[in-house]
């Protein structure tokens, strides 16, 4: 290159001792920090997981009786893993394709849809209806309804002349609010006993989850999560916004649609499994970006999934062994997630 290209101050700079590399974690310090965060999260996750299986277990560890009790509790740990995986992968990807760090899939009316389906079942079928929304066919039906509705909504909104995400999100909020109102209206008309049954089902609860759903839920999550993982380098680009994505040679709309489809699949499985978890996704994604401190999805995804599991297992452990109220884990997550949400918005001062 000609000499004019290197101005004096650059030319005089001392020779670099380290090779210039681009990587997702630019400095040795950030790499150490990431490894520490990952290790700490693994330790916490294993700790809480083991705690849930072994704490208060009347049999001495290692005996057949101990394992039998642990096996019974193991289902809820697996459910927590599935939910943490779904919520973490879905929320991080959703925030990437919608190019924001505040809105989560819950805002697309997912949870309202779940509440509406459950309420409608109890409303129209009575207390007997609760049993009607259990079982594998109903689980699949519920997932299909949710994915179908969201894909129809995305497809319609993103292909037409309203092809922008703000409009889509606004319509998502309106549909969510509308479904919420319909549900509230139906709940008003329920008898107290029916309402009681419904409320118990609407609290996000890993202890309510039906283990017979897992053989379907796990492969679906693994497939959707695997695809998101396989496309994580593309997601890195999509996070830069539409114009940059197109400039770098990707079909932005295809990337967004695929991302949203996989997100709706993951969210549908999670919601159908344990009910609404409004702030879990936000909590997980926000903490993941804070702790991982990188834009690289391959590094953010594992941190997010681990945080999700630690939060779920941790709050479940606390609710079960400190407050003796294991049915309402979502309360503690809503409190922690909601506080973080407020703190984050007040500190940043913008969306």
């Amino acid at each position, binding site marked *: *290159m*000609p000499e*004019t*290209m*290197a*101005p004096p101050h*650059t030319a005089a*700079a001392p020779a670099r001792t380290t*090779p*210039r*590399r*681009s990587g*997702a974690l*630019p*400095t040795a310090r950030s790499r150490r920090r990431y490894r520490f965060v990952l290790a700490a999260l693994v330790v916490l996750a294993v700790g809480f997981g083991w705690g849930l299986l072994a704490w208060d277990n009347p049999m001495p560890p290692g005996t057949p009786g101990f394992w039998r009790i642990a096996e019974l509790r193991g289902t809820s740990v697996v459910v927590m893993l599935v939910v943490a995986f779904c919520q973490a992968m879905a929320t991080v990807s959703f*925030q990437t394709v919608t*190019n*924001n*760090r505040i809105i989560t899939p819950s805002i697309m009316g997912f949870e309202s849809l779940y509440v509406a389906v459950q309420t409608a079942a109890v409303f129209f079928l009575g207390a007997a209806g609760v049993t009607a929304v259990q079982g594998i066919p109903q689980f699949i039906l519920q997932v299909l309804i949710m994915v179908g509705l969201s894909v129809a909504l995305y497809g319609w909104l993103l292909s037409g002349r309203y092809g922008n995400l703000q409009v889509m999100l606004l319509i998502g909020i309106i549909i969510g609010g509308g479904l919420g109102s319909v549900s509230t209206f139906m709940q008003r008309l329920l008898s107290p006993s029916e309402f009681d049954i419904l409320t118990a089902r609407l609290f996000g609860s890993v202890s309510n989850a039906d283990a017979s759903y897992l053989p379907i839920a796990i492969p679906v999550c693994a497939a959707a999560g695997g695809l998101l993982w396989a496309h994580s*380098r*593309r997601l*890195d*680009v999509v*996070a*830069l*916004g*539409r*114009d*940059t994505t*197109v*400039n*770098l*040679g*990707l*079909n932005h709309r295809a990337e967004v649609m695929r991302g949203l489809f996989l997100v709706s699949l993951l969210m549908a499985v999670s919601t159908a499994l344990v009910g609404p978890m409004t702030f879990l996704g936000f909590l997980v994604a926000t903490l993941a970006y804070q702790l991982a*401190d990188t*834009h690289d999805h391959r590094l953010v995804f594992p941190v997010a999934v681990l945080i999700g599991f630690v939060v779920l297992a941790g709050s479940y452990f606390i609710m079960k062994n400190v407050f003796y109220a294991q049915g309402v884990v979502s309360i503690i997550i809503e409190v922690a997630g909601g506080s973080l949400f407020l703190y984050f918005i007040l500190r940043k001062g913008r969306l």
Partner: protein
Amino acid sequence: MITLNEVGKSYGGDVEIGPVSFEIPTGGITALVGPNGAGKSTLLTMIGRLLGLDTGAIEVAGYDVASTSSKDLAKIVSILRQENHFTARLTVRQLVGFGRFPHSKGRLTTVDEEVISRSIDFLNLGDLEGRYLDQLSGGQRQRAYVAMVLAQDTGHVLLDEPLNNLDMRHSVQMMQHLRRAAEDLGRTIVVVIHDINFAAHYADHICAVKDGKVVEFGTPGQIMTDAVLTRVFETPVQVIQGPQGPLAVYY
């Protein structure tokens, strides 16, 4: 070479672009100038396939932008929009690294790293490459974006108002960088510019756009006349001879 053939775009109602037919020659800097709302940026974004065309065709280096796959076009033409806001927190080097995506699909090789380093040094960002974008001044950030599109290593580079929000000193530096990119790296650069004097001094060709049509195309010497500029900008303009070429005076 960029060829526009009967290119049109309508926004329903009376606002429309085209039909426009003209050629941007290979090499050097071509400046698109014209009044606000004339369609300069629209034309640029259509060439960069960020915006579809309603009628006509655009070819960049012989490739039709509508039918060539976006993946291949990303190695032929790069475009930088005026507003760039990323939710992701990136260092300068990470940002410039994204410019290599069309070539490496995100797996940076040693060659990619070299191109990135060269691109960063080219824009004098060597000392800042580890900084995060939100720690930079507007001028430095703008240089980082330009470094990204240069790292993309395309023959044609489209820049939408690269001098926007830059002060005198940074505007001059930016134009000198672009000049060197055109001369030393052999890139064909198309810029939308508001300051006609910058265009006259640094560009090889000036293309005047008005009401969605190309009304003048020529060398700065041909465009920098009282009559042409007054007609294009609909405001009285006088061209005087300055110490470094013609100057438009219009205050």
